[in-house]
């Protein structure tokens, strides 16, 4: 069934940007899947990360800043045959898009959400994002958080996400593995990907992450919610990467068997006689 390969095109990113590895890894992962490009929809908001969706040969939905999730879930609801993958930034996902993050986790629609987390607003040139490191009050740098830093994994678990993982753009093998698992996961899957921004984030650099990331122990039990939350709170000298939490739960579609079956919504027939019958009920 597979017709053509997924290919990438020229980007507008800075040389050295962590986004390149993510793009490359994702393309590799897609090429290993059965699904042909025209059955894949890449969705994003606005930002450097979100541009990724412009650079892979698949269907592409480049929406509004912060608003990728509602669009993505609706695409999946409308046509369950499509594989829907969101690539977008930390500002987009957790800042402007915070409310959709909360409530689309709760919906558990079968989509995958890759957050290119550079802990900064890249496209707008270096403001703090919700995930920026806390300010050292004695020695303030530009893009740090005066408030509490947003912990996406902990929050996702707390909200009820059924697949919560972290990876690092600098470890392509790990990233590929997690991406595959996330796409395979039935329901909403979040992967927060540490991604160095060479132009604006002078603190959380490639070397910084490289030194700190530490794959989860093979014995780690990803089904224990409380332990997962504890693990998610680790973010400092070591940063755990891997699938922190996973559970099997009914997806959006599975909870609504009256409407969703083997025939995707888009292919269901509109029956005008049913409509006319409903009209007649108002006589």
């Amino acid at each position: 069934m597979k017709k053509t390969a997924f290919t990438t095109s020229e980007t507008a990113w800075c040389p050295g940007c962590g986004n390149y590895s993510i793009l490359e890894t994702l393309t590799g992962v897609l090429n290993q899947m059965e699904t042909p490009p025209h059955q894949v929809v890449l969705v994003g908001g606005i930002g450097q990360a979100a541009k990724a969706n412009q650079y892979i040969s698949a269907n592409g939905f480049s929406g509004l800043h912060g608003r990728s999730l509602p669009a993505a879930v609706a695409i999946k609801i409308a046509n369950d045959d499509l594989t829907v993958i969101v690539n977008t930034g930390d500002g987009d996902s957790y800042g402007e898009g915070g409310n959709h993050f909360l409530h689309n986790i709760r919906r558990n629609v079968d989509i995958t959400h890759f957050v290119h987390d550079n802990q900064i607003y890249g496209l707008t040139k270096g403001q703090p994002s919700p995930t920026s490191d806390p300010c050292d009050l004695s020695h303030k740098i530009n893009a740090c958080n005066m408030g509490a830093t947003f912990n996406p994994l902990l929050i996702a678990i707390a909200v009820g996400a059924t697949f919560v993982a972290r990876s690092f753009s600098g470890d392509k093998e790990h990233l590929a593995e997690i991406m595959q698992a996330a796409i395979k996961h039935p329901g909403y899957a979040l992967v927060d990907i540490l991604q160095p921004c060479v132009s604006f984030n002078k603190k959380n650099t490639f070397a910084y992450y490289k030194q700190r990331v530490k794959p989860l122990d093979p014995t780690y039990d990803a089904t224990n919610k409380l332990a997962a939350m504890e693990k998610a709170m680790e973010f400092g000298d070591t940063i755990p990467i891997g699938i922190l939490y996973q559970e099997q739960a009914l997806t959006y579609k599975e909870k609504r068997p009256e409407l969703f079956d083997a025939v995707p919504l888009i292919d269901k027939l509109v029956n005008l006689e049913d409509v006319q019958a409903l009209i007649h009920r108002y006589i």
Partner: protein
Amino acid sequence: MYNILLGGAAGDGIETMSALLEKMLKQSGCHLFTIRDFMSRVRGGHNFTQIRFGNTLLHAHRDSLDGIFAIDETTYREHQSQLSDDGFILCDESLSIDDHRALKLPLKAVAKELGNPKVISSVAIGALLKIFDFSLEYAADTLKNNLRADLVEINLSALHRGFDLTKPRFGLKSALTSDYLLLSGNTAIGLGALAAGIKFYSAYPMSPSTTLLDFFSTHGDKMNVAAEQAEDEIAAINMAIGASYAGVPAMTGTSGGGFSLMVEALGFTGIAEIPLVVVDVQRPGPATGFPTRTEQSDLKFVISASQGEFPRMVIAVKDHTDCFYQTARSFALANKYQIPVILLSDQYLADSTTTIPILDASKIISAPTTAAGDLDENDRYRRYALTKSGISPLAIPGKTEALVRIDSDEHDEYGQITESADIRNKMVEKRMAKLELLKEELIEPEFWGAHQCQSLLVGFGSTSGAIKEAVDLLNAKENHYGALIFGDIYPLPTKRLKHFASQVVEIINIEQNATGQLASLIREEALLCCNHSILKYDGRQLSVDDILTGIKNLKGGF
């Protein structure tokens, strides 16, 4: 033709009572027009419905009443001045109402005797049916179809007891109403969307649009519509956009405050050329305003909402039948031109119920599907191919080999971000070209009245019925009134308006807002100035009577 009012506090069951009575009246051969006036609270305060009924079709409410059913004294106080001299005030004997028109009956006592004080409203319905000389023929069926099984018996007894409490005072020749529907404006919009093949409806609750979400939640599973309550209005519209991109007809609905939150995404549909229907069921603003009341004050807002420039269509629905057919037409236009179509309704239409001829789903011109088109010589898909008409091929992701790319940034023919001045110019021109095509399918405003009129009333949307009835009444005296009532309102069709403007001595705009928004749109689009205005903005719909009074006052000023 009669006009009665049922009033009480929120929670007194006035709405349920009204719905039952309306159904029985219709069964008995009446046409109806019922308005609902309620406060933004769940219990207490003062709510009422006004049921106008007769043996011809009705298109508006009137102010003067033939009867009042007053659950409390507030109802009497608030409305007695509307009651005609030979009208009646049906109420319980315990109310201290000192008025020769009062018809005090032991409603409470009967209900209590029956064992449930709540059936007082059924006792009252019985009495009302008797007063207007109807039978109880349809009572049992109506109760059976609308109440919980265990409540039917006692309410039926209550009806009979109420019926026996009084005697006939009015009579009406009944009509044949079995070929008519009885429904609200929002129901008609829901049905129109179904007839047009809607498959996705997303919304966040907001009066007076919430009943649309209820409609799709109730019927969605059966009718193949995914109805989604969104976390907020921004999500609601972005969901609908996603669904539309994925190829299913989609709609979102809200009121002005929610529309405000949708403004950015509206522009997204503009630049990304996503077909979408957005319903704005207006209520008085600004901001939270008057949540459960009515106004036509979002017109100028919705025609220019969102940064930048893109074509859109705005249709103001005029009555319940229009709600159905224009909603369906909106889907067709949105799809044909790949634009957002905004349906402007309001609380008056949304919540009022009336009898209308049976809606015909087979009459709907289904949304034309734009061809997907082919891949280009490099096997790439030009979602935004530059065409003379401005309308590009529209493939659905997954349904062909085309990779369909859309973008909220300015983009090239492939949907790829661009910074080129040249492509920008072409894309702006391509998009705006659609507006010119759209102008050719505009429906001119409906004319009503004397063709050789000297005074031209202009209005739009839900004031239609009242304006027409007012024109008829005015013309019965002096046959020189005409009216133009706009449905298609943006782009504004100006042909018929200019024709009549050249003939009349005065133009009077009649609007449910404070600034005369239609008049200013007419100045802008037709360079015509309205000479007088009749405006209302207290949240209560302009009635035939308001228009007649308005005209009279203007004449006084001549």
